Structures are given as structure tokens and as C-alpha cells.
């Protein structure tokens, strides 16, 4: 039929009908004003706290300011979006105008898209008024404009997701109240309940395992250190020092056990979480865990680090086989991108090794630099598509089966 017929003018018609109703209401402007003042107050609080209480530099403050504002805007958007979307279809049904709309030339998908767009735009107004405060964080320095753009884009997209979920619920319920409750439950599920499930599931993966490290056996290490000693001792070196013999790496048992949480099996439970997605996409860059010093310790960076480490997971043992900086004897061995190694002697003399065998790691898996957010976005897109499809199906006429207790008009 014409359920999926989509025209620009059809969507625009529904959109303008919806928007002119919302724009008419004064409550909307009052809420926006209150929200603007409230966000200003939060910004001022964070600012005062870090400047006055912690004597932080402007850059440190800006990272925290940006993080907290982003998380706050995300949280409030998740609370605002259901208000505008969860009544979209069901309120028209309650007012007895839905059937007259369906009887026109408009197709189900045009009605659904118009209403979705309207609730999305109205919710976005709440995101947009916070931009001056994010701008303040940028002005302090330390946060790049790109981060701001990414964070804003992610919030926009997540609001669209919540609006679609609200639209879906509003299509299948017969009361605006019920639809609103279900939409808030969905938000709670995506943010808090998945977190609880993640924690519980992770706790169940914890097991005691024998610790063994993947590294050069002591004998191989000794003989290589001896080679290096000889190389540094000789005064006339025409060739580069030998590369570490990584091909000899083996499991070395440590003789004790440790309890390991296998988050690599459970991390995906965090994927749908909008806070995780925005943090992973927009946080300041982190440096690898092994250096244990983070560029940035603001909340966004910590969430990002947390989810990425969870994906890498934990193992009873470490990879000391040249994948990252290691110590062999008193020599510091740091990998270089071209496959050679920087070898620093105890006297502080750094030289570059001859090309050698590339270290192989039994821990092959994700890297800390691999982003998580594309998967999160994809999972959200699937959820949104399902709810949108549901809404369109429920709007399409002529009705075959009607939910019991519901009249068309």
C-alpha cells in the first residue's frame, strides 16, 4: 500500500502541525529559560569548585568543565526527550485527531517521521541553549573544538534515539501516561540497568587462574643481555645492536594464582549506554594504560578508558614480549613503529636496534586505541530502527487487527 510512501511535503505538513502546537505553549519557553539558568548555575559551581578549592590550572578545569557539562547535558536530554516524544502519537489518538490524519493523503511513514522530527527538534532546543557554557570550557583552553563538535553530535543522535523509542511506545499504547512511563523505563534500562547487568555478569566471570606471563625465558634474556653488554662495551660499532630474540618468547609460570574478571565477555553490555558512547567519542585522548599516567583524568576520559579496558579484558598474566616498553636486565627496550627497538643502556645511551623478528602476542585482541562508540552507535541505530518500524506499522491503515479496547474513532 502506501504505508512507506515518503514525500518531503507530507513530512513537512506533520512537522509544522506539531511544531505550531508546541511553539504556541508558553510552558515550553519557561522550561527553556529555567534550564538555561540551571545549566549556568552548574557551570559556575564546577568552575568555583575546581578553581577555588583545588587551585587547578585553567586547562585542568576546562577538561572537567567540559566533561561534566557534557554528561549533564546528555543526562538532562535523556530526561527531556521522552516528555516530547512519548505523547506524539498517543495524544493525537486521545484527542481523536489521529484517525482523521490517517484518512488523508499522508502515509504512515510521513506521520511517524514528522512527529519524530518535531519531538527531536524541540528536545534539541534544550541542548542548544547549553552551547554557551560548553563554549566557555573551550575558551578556557585544553578542550578542542573537535571534541565539542563530536560531543554535541553524539548528544543530538542520542536524543533522536530516545525520541524514536518514545515514538514507538506512543504508537502502541493507548494512554500518554503509559507511553511516557515505558519511555522512561527504556532510558533507565539503557543507562542504569545495563550497568547493573554488566556488573552482575562480570562478577560471575571472575575466576582464580594460575598467573603466567608471556616473555623471554630467563636463559634467553641473560644471553641477550650479555650480547648487549658486549656491544656497548666495544668502542667501534659499525652495525646496530642485535634485536631482542622475541621469537623465543614462551609462557613463564609465576607459581601463584590471581582472581581475574573476564570483562571481555561482558563489555558489550555497556554498548547501548549513551554516556559511554559520548565519552568514548568525545573524551580527551588517553595514553596507553601501561604508562599508567593519563593525559587526562576527567570523567569522560575515565569512562572511555574503563570501557576500552573492559573490552580488552583481563588475563592471568601479562605480555612482556616486546609489544610495549619492557626491561631486559638493566636495558630499557621500547618498540618503534618501524619494527626496530630503542635500546637504552643503564648509562642512558639510547641506540636503535637492528631490525629483528616482530614480537607475536598470544593476547591478540583489541587495542586501547580502538574506538567503542561506532559499535554503540550501531546498536542504538538498530534499536531506533526497530521502534520506528513499530510506529509505522501501528500507524498504517486500513487496520487489520486492533488492540483490544481501542477504537479507531
Amino acid at each position, binding site marked *: 500500500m502506501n504505508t512507506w510512501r515518503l514525500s518531503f511535503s507530507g513530512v513537512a505538513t506533520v512537522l509544522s502541525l506539531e511544531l505550531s502546537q508546541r511553539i504556541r505553549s508558553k510552558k515550553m519557553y519557561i522550561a527553556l529559560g529555567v534550564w538555561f539558568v540551571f545549566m549556568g548555575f552548574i557551570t559556575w559551581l564546577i568552575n568555583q569548585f575546581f578553581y577555588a578549592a583545588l587551585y587547578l590550572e585553567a586547562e585542568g578545569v576546562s577538561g572537567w568543565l567540559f566533561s561534566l557539562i557534557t554528561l549533564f547535558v546528555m543526562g538532562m536530554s535523556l530526561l527531556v526527550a521522552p516528555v516530547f516524544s512519548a505523547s506524539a502519537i498517543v495524544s493525537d489518538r486521545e484527542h481523536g485527531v489521529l484517525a482523521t490524519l490517517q*484518512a488523508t493523503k499522508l502515509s504512515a511513514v510521513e506521520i511517524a517521521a514528522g512527529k519524530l522530527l518535531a519531538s527531536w527538534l524541540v528536545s534539541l532546543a534544550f541542548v542548544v541553549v547549553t552551547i554557551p557554557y560548553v563554549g566557555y570550557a573551550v575558551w578556557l583552553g585544553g578542550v578542542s573544538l573537535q571534541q565539542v563538535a563530536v560531543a554535541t553530535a553524539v548528544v543530538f543522535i542520542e536524543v533522536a534515539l530516545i525520541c524514536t523509542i518514545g515514538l514507538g511506545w506512543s504508537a502502541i499504547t493507548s494512554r500518554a501516561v503509559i507511553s511516557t512511563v515505558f519511555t522512561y523505563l527504556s532510558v533507565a534500562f539503557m543507562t542504569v540497568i545495563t550497568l547493573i547487568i554488566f556488573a552482575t555478569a562480570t562478577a560471575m566471570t571472575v575466576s582464580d587462574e594460575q598467573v603466567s606471563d608471556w616473555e623471554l625465558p630467563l636463559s634467553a634474556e641473560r644471553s641477550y643481555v650479555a650480547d648487549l653488554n658486549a656491544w656497548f662495551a666495544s668502542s667501534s660499532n659499525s652495525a646496530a645492536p642485535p634485536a631482542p630474540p622475541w621469537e623465543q618468547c614462551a609462557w613463564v609460570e609465576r607459581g601463584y594464582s590471581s582472581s581475574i574478571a573476564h570483562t571481555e565477555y561482558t563489555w558489550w553490555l555497556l554498548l547501548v549506554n549513551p554516556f559511554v558512547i559520548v565519552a568514548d567519542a568525545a573524551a580527551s585522548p588517553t595514553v596507553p594504560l601501561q604508562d599508567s599516567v593519563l593525559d587526562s583524568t576527567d570523567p569522560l576520559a575515565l569512562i572511555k578508558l574503563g570501557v576500552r579496558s573492559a573490552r580488552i579484558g583481563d588475563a592471568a598474566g601479562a605480555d612482556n614480549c616486546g609489544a610495549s616498553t619492557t626491561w631486559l636486565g638493566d636495558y630499557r627496550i621500547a618498540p618503534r613503529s618501524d619494527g626496530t627497538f630503542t635500546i637504552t643502556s643503564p648509562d642512558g645511551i639510547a641506540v636503535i636496534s637492528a631490525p629483528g623478528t616482530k614480537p607475536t602476542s598470544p593476547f591478540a585482541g583489541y587495542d586501547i586505541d580502538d574506538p567503542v562508540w561506532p559499535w554503540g552507535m550501531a546498536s542504538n541505530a538498530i534499536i531506533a530502527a526497530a521502534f520506528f518500524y513499530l510506529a509505522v506499522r501501528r500507524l498504517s491503515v486500513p487496520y487489520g487487527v486492533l488492540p483490544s479496547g481501542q477504537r479507531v474513532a
Partner: protein
Amino acid sequence: MTDYPALSSPPAAPNTQPAVPGIFARNVRRTFGSVLAVADVSFTAPAAAVTALIGPNGSGKTTLLLMLAGLLRPDVGQINVAGFDMARSSYEARIRIGWMPDTLGTWDSLTCAEILTGYGRAYGMSKAFATERAHFMLRQLFLAEYANAPARVLSRGQKQRLGLARALVHDPQVVLLDEPASGLDPRSRIELRDLLRSLADAGKTVLVSSHVLSELEEIADHSVFLQRGQSIDVRAIERNATVRGWRLEALDPAALQAFLNSRNLPWRPGSAATTEVIVNLPDQQAALALLREAVAAGVPLHTIAPVSGRLEETYLSLDGERQ
């Protein structure tokens, strides 16, 4: 862009046009779970005529109209509207139909003009044309002064007229009205009647469900009776219902009653507020004969009239009850 002629414009050449298809339904049935709302309905509503849809509460009128409007799928049966088969081309049919539900619904915060413009655009009109059309419809239905008033403030009858304007905004070929007269004052009813007449004269198919039978009697060219979701063969009922009640009233009630008793005519008292009596007579000839005799016998008879309209008579002779 479809060309929407003015509502009141006369048909280009009445009677010479090829017959425009109206509404055709055969063996239509619809259930809601275990509730049988429409059991078996067959009827035809020709174009250029007003057809009345009459039946007691719960007989399935609204359900039938929903199916005709392309909003509800019949379980079985065939429906053709404006020449399109509902089962295959419900969209084609739908956009040629103007449907007015029995429940009034509007967006409270929008003005009447905005609502009508919105619906005009929903039917694919350009913004400028939809606005023009909206104001035209408001004038047609005597709502021009409320053009910029929010629909919230309208009275029930005004809302009903707005609903009518909404159903007609795209100049539909087939008009389906579910109890359009409810809530209208006598003058508005007459205006509604004239409007429906002009629509029929312009070649539209008009199907009206209503309880106000006296109004339908004057306007409907055809009538379809529904009872327990079933269409009734009206001719069969009319054959049975030829004996009608007649209302007699005389200045001297006692003389009238004595006269009737002397003729062995059974009578019963009419409405309590008057001294009238009701007698059953087979036809108008009998009524005339009775009148002559009464006058000849010196009874001061001043009123003799059929008890009710034909539609009402038929309606009441349906043995079904309200549901």
C-alpha cells in the same frame, strides 16, 4: 496539483455526465475479537444522491463508515468507493473520501484556520492554496469570525461545523458523515441539509448516518437500515408497515371517542399533554374516509396527521433493540 472547484459551484453539465461510481458494499463483515460489529452488510449508495444510514445504537454504523473510509479492513466482503476496490487500492479511494467521525477531535491550541490549512496540506495542497481553501470552507460553514480563534473555545455545534469543514476541505467525491447533525441548532441543521443537498447536486456521493430521522426524511434520496450489524431490506419492512398510526384531536374529546367507539375503531390515548387519540389506519384513503364521516357526524375534529415520518416508522418497526 488537483484542481479543487468551489463547493457551491454547480456541476458542469448535470445528467449528461457518465454515471460516477458511488459506494458499493457487498457482504461486508467485521469483528473485534469476539464482538461482531458488522455482520453482513450489502448496499449501494449512488453518486449525486444523499443516502441515509440508519440504525439503533451499536448497530455498526460507525464501524461500517470506518471501513468505507479506508481506515478499517473488513474481515470479509467487498467494498468499492469512488470506483476503487478497497482491498487493492484503499489509498486511491481514501484520498477521494471526506470522512467526518462521530467523535469531535481537534488540536486545542491551533486556530480553526490553521487546522483546516493543515488538513488541506495533508491532502497535498500548496500552502497558499490550502490557506485560501481553509478560509473558503470557514465562510461556507459560517465560522469565518472564528478563523483565528483557537479550536478550544468553539462551542459544540461550532466544533461540529469545523469537523464538517475539515471533511470537505479537499472537495471529496464521496462524503461520509457520522452523525453530523448532533449538537446542531435548528438553523444549523437546515444549513447542513442545504449543504448536503448542494453536494449531492454537484454530483458527490453523500452517506450520512444520523438519529435525527425527521431531517433525514426530507433530504435522503435513499436509506440503508442497519440492525445488529446487518443491512435490512427496507422494501420488505415497508410492505409490512403499511398500517400507520394517525393522530386525531378534537375540540370535544369525548365526542371524538364516542364517535370512534361507535365505528368500532380501536384507539389509544396519545401524548399525555394533549387530548389526542391514536388510531391505526391502513392507508390515506381510510384516513380521508374517517375524516369525512367524523365531520358529517358533527365531531369538532381539527387535527388528523400521521404519527411520525416514514423513516421513523420503519426505524421503530425494526424489532431489534438498542445495543
